[in-house]
Structure formats: C-alpha cells, structure tokens
C-alpha cells in the first residue's frame, strides 16, 4: 500500500462499472489477479467501447432441466452476432457437482484447458449445501465451518474476454458427476454489440 500512488476519488471514472479503482476488493493489493485482468488490453477496450449491451446467458434451457446421472449433456447456445463472454459461474443441486466446458462451435477452441468442476466456477455455497441455508455465501460462518473460502463476488471472471462472432456460437458441455439426476446451471455473463442508436426504446 505504501508504494502505490494515491488517486483522488474525483479522478476515478465511477461510470466504468469494471474500473478496478472503484472497488476496494479489486485493488491490486487485495486481489492482484482481478486487478491485472481488468487492466488487460482487451478488457480496457471493452470498458471503453460504445454500443455494447449487457447480457447473461443461462444454460441449459429450461433452467430446471435435470441432467441424467453420470451423463454428458451438450447445449447449443443461441447468441447475438458479436458476443463477448467475460465471466461465468455454475451451480449444481448435488454435492458431487458436475464438469463444465465451453467450446467454440466453429473453431473448436475451448474456454478451459480441461473440464472445470462447477465448485471451481462458483464463489457461493458448495454444491449440495441446502438452498435454505441463510447467506449461502462461502463467507457465511456456517459454511466456513465446513468449506472455508472467501467471498469474492458472484462472478468468476475470465482472464481475458472470449469473443464469439457469427457464424460461431458457444456449446456448453455439462458432465453430471452425481449418481442421481441433477439440476445444473451454467451462466455466461456477456457484452453484446448492438446497432448504433438502439440503446433505448
């Protein structure tokens, strides 16, 4: 902290929702990974871009669809022509959880180098913790006693935003690791390019 320059609050761009200076949790001394991510050149371009609209893609459809035990499920995701995916999170109803992979349908490139367990894509309660538990955050004392962790917000940010541009689209793969049917949800937080002048009705 002593070596970092002090920035006057009035010099901070508070209209930039992903400016790491506006949130203490994103300060370079608190979370240098998040700070570095948001200062990535691609992130800087997105933060300053015009004609972008926020979007969240929830998969699978319908969201209460159950995945058969120990089976693989692929969901083709319909997206806007130019979609930047910058964060994800995942939640399952069973303790065993599930694996997640997001693949570009056109190039075959994957967001994760290997299948990711949903617990690693969640900052909230571990899979299988009763939904009625108050707080439901990993910082909740009742959960801390079982699964210690830090509250780092609801979103898991990608180190660099991923672009899906027409005719490509993402394919979300879910591999149910439980021996019973499980409700699995994968959410992708995106910014989509929209036509100029169509920001408001």
């Amino acid at each position: 902290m002593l070596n970092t320059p002090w920035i006057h609050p009035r010099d901070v761009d508070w209209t930039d929702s992903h400016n790491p200076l506006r949130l203490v949790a994103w300060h370079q001394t608190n979370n240098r990974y998040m700070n570095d991510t948001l200062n990535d050149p691609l992130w800087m371009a997105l933060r300053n871009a015009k004609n972008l609209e926020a979007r969240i893609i929830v998969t699978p459809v319908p969201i209460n669809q159950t995945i058969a035990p120990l089976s693989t499920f692929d969901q083709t995701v319909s997206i806007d022509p130019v979609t930047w995916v910058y964060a994800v999170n995942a939640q399952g109803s069973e303790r065993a959880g599930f694996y997640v992979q997001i693949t570009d349908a056109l190039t075959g490139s994957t967001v994760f180098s290997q299948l990711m367990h949903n617990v690693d894509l969640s900052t909230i309660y571990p899979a299988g913790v009763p939904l009625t538990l108050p707080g439901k955050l990993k910082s909740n004392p009742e959960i801390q006693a079982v699964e210690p962790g830090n509250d780092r917000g609801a979103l898991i940010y990608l180190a660099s935003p991923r672009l899906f541009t027409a005719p490509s689209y993402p394919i979300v793969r879910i591999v149910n690791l439980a021996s019973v049917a499980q409700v699995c949800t994968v959410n992708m937080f995106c910014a989509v390019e929209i036509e100029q002048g169509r920001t408001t009705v």
Partner: protein
Amino acid sequence: MTPTPTSNITAPQPSYVEEAAIYVFVFTMQANIHYGRVPVNIDRDSDFMLTGLNGSSNGTYTLNFRLPSGRLIASAEINNTNFVGTANQPTAIGPPPIYRAGSTGPELDLTDTSGALNMIQIIFSGIRRLRTS
C-alpha cells in the same frame, strides 16, 4: 444586394451533474409465486446509470430485469446466488445501462424458490445524472 448569411446559432448544450446514487428495492414474495415486470421507478429529475447490484433475502429466488432497450438482460431467470452480489463486492453490471428519468427502470421478473415467505432487498447502485441547464 448580397444575401444576408443565415446566422449559425446552435442551441446551448445541456450540462449535467453526476453523483452517486442507490435505488433500494424492497419486496415481499409469497411462496413459489412469480412476479412479472415489477418496476423500480427512476426519479423524474435525473437519469440513472446502473453499475452495481447487491442484496439480501430470507430465501432463494430467481430474477431477471430489463435493460433500457426493453430487452431482458438474461436469457432466463437467474438464481439470486449466481447474480446478486454482496455489500463487500457488488456484482458489476457491465456495460452499465442508463435508465432515463421518470422511467420504470429495470423492471424485474421475480420468482420465489424458497417455498416460504421471502423478503428481499436489492440494491441498485450507480450514478445519478442531474441536468442543471
């Protein structure tokens, strides 16, 4: 006689003052009931740029809300635990939408999934832009 050139008088540009703003949304949901297009009314004297979202509740619920364009931000209602942040780390809404003064704001679609009476408080934090001239 030479024609008199038309004068190029342009209307003065409006000026604005920006300040921090928080819209607090408090709502009570009955068990397993869906509520559609619940408004979060924006003040008539200023636009509101939404940059952060956090909140608390008695139980779980799913939510979705509308952008100023009228489009829903999510393709389906999303679990509150996957979207609504905490006071320590609000979920950053990016790119931040701007809701016009006097509008119904981010009209919420809410569904209780806790199976009991569910009181929720959602904090919409951001920037208020007041026109001064």
